[in-house]
């Protein structure tokens, strides 16, 4: 192949600047995990479980769908744990190629979520027995969502990401409004605006990432040429 030789050919300034921008965009695209992976599991978890809560424990004690009263809370716990485990694993996997301040930051933030939820669950589990039946769901859901909102805001602060911070503010706001409105309304708000909001936030964040480059086509040529040398390359990679 000739690219080894071509690689060393200087280019004109404009071409070099375009190359720099292209490579940086490509690196950002490949290094940034798909934001939907972190937001959609929670979006679906909230949409499903708070809808069930609303249907079973509607405003003013109305029952829209007569299912056993443990079903919505069990689904809430199951979907939350699933979403937490999924985002935790994906987060850890996406960070495993980078080591240094960023991966430490990601690990600390991930641990913070787990510890915070464990701590809160412990407290709520202890005091739930003293809370009137009608308010127990609101206590759990309201406290969990307040914590989620605060952790998103903290995430926005840590990663200097305005959109994550605003998502946290939004979650915190609808939670407080829902708690004041009372059981039933709280679940409805969180299902529609909370769950729906996270799904929308994920789609929006995804749309703002750099798109796959048109330059891929150009690079594909170099790639096929390089692929012929891949045998030698793989041998070396094996030694890494």
């Amino acid at each position, binding site marked *: 192949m000739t690219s080894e030789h071509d690689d060393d050919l200087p280019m004109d300034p404009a071409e*070099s*600047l375009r190359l720099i921008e292209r490579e940086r965009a490509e690196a950002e695209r490949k290094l940034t995990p798909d934001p939907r992976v972190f937001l959609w599991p929670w979006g679906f978890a909230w949409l499903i479980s708070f809808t069930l809560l609303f249907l079973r424990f509607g405003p003013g004690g109305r029952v829209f769908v007569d299912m056993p009263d443990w079903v919505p809370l069990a689904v809430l716990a199951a979907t939350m744990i699933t979403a937490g485990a999924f985002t935790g694993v994906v987060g850890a996997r996406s960070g495993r190629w*980078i080591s*240094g*301040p960023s991966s430490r930051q990601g690990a600390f933030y991930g641990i913070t979520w787990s510890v915070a939820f464990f701590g809160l669950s412990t407290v709520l589990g202890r005091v739930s027995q003293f809370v009137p039946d009608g308010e127990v769901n609101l206590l759990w859901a309201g406290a969990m969502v307040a914590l989620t909102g605060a952790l998103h805001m903290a995430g926005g602060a840590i990663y200097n990401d305005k959109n994550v911070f605003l998502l946290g503010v939004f979650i915190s706001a609808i939670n407080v409004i829902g708690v004041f409105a009372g059981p039933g309304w709280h679940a409805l708000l969180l299902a529609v605006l909370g769950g729906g909001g996270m799904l929308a936030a994920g789609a929006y964040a995804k749309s703002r990432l750099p798109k796959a480059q048109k330059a891929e086509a150009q*690079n594909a040529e170099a790639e096929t040429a390089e692929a012929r040398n891949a045998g030698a*390359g793989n041998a070396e*990679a094996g030694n*890494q």
Partner: protein
Amino acid sequence: MSQTELPELDPVIHAQARLRVVSSLSMLREGDRIAFPRLQEILRMTAGNLSVHLRKLEDAGYVEVTKTHQGRTPATLVQLTRRGRLAFEDYTAALKALLNPSEEP
């Protein structure tokens, strides 16, 4: 601006492949290191080709290559040094100056 000005540009990164390597590494936060196979995947280069260019950049003090272990698996981590980051910024500034000579102070 004539082509004769071009030699002012840093010869170490004024080669397409090494410019690509440095551009990609510049997206990492200072102090972060990236695993060799991941860098290879981003750059779509063969391991052999990438190694050659990394060595040249390492010789210039622009990148630091660390052999380490992640668990029991040996890993090669690559990082842009402070000097490399500065060289990249100077290089980009020089390119812009070449394109817009009037904007130069």
